[in-house]
């Protein structure tokens, strides 16, 4: 419990009360920032000498199909000094869905952001190499969006011909 309070105190001191929302439920702590301040917040979390969140474990996105802010990007960070897993979220609202890339801060975010782009179609600005991860390059849809059916769209992926 003390670790969580320490983190909340340091973040509110170093980054300001109004820019960050705090949610503490189901045993996890998560912060929500606006997408313009995301890179600044990430740099603060990595370089602050009391926090030191130097490992990024995961980057992903959530598609709320009917909300106005349709996507939320989620980042999971870990600090060896405090031995704590933290979650940071940022909401994206209108088309085109864009957010700044954090791969300049944590190297591991490179492939995670490529996978999020492949599955959801979110554009990461300043990413060194944004191309598809799992689906082939010519695929025109984004599979994990809620309007793409589980069975797929027939004809979107060609098959070889059967002999004779």
């Amino acid at each position, binding site marked *: 419990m003390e670790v969580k309070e320490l983190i909340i105190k340091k973040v509110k001191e170093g980054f300001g009360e109004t820019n960050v929302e705090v949610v503490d439920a189901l045993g996890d702590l998560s912060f929500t920032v606006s997408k313009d301040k995301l890179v600044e917040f990430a740099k603060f979390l990595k370089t602050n000498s009391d926090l030191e969140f130097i490992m990024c474990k995961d980057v992903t996105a959530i598609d709320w199909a009917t909300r106005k802010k349709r996507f939320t990007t989620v980042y999971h960070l870990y600090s060896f000094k405090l031995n704590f897993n933290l979650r940071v979220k940022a909401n994206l609202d209108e088309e085109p869905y864009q957010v700044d890339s954090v791969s300049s801060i944590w190297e591991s975010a490179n492939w995670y952001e490529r996978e999020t782009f492949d599955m959801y179609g979110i554009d990461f600005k300043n990413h060194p190499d944004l191309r598809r991860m799992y*689906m082939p390059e010519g695929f025109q849809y984004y599979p994990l969006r809620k309007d793409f059916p589980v069975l*797929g769209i027939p004809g979107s992926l060609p098959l*070889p*011909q*059967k002999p*004779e």
Partner: protein
Amino acid sequence: MGLEAKLTQDGFVTTTIDAVVAWARKSSVWPMPMGISCCAIEMIAAADPKYDISRFGSEVMRFTPRQCDLMIVAGTVTYKMAQVVKRIYDQMPDPKWVIAMGACTSSGGMYRSYSVVQGIDQFLPVDVYTAGCPPRPENLLNALITIQEKIGKTRARDFQDIIQPKTEIANN
């Protein structure tokens, strides 16, 4: 193929040659393991000391298609991988047979999704299907024995229409 494929009538000499050639082919079937996912581990287990596959003649599992005559497709085939599987199937020399190992290759398995081919018989001619997820190694050996029985019944004239057209051009 080659000389004995030109023997098309039934007679004492031709049926004996057929029987000998079929026996030789079925006793040394060299598989090409197209190991893609979990069934590949059970295929390696079929080659380990407990369920030995080399006592059935499949002494070596060559990973190059040019030296094999049986392709065991083990694992889920996606649309992206289907192009690769077909390309490797084309590189194998005739006569060739295919075993579809497991539920994923027979019919898509438990994956009814946008990127999994629902059965490899949509683009490959399959000889034996094997059930299981993954099938036990004894099940794979049963499939191999079925293929050997199938090979034992073939005759030389079954392979006649696969002769390449280029040889006819050279004869003229």
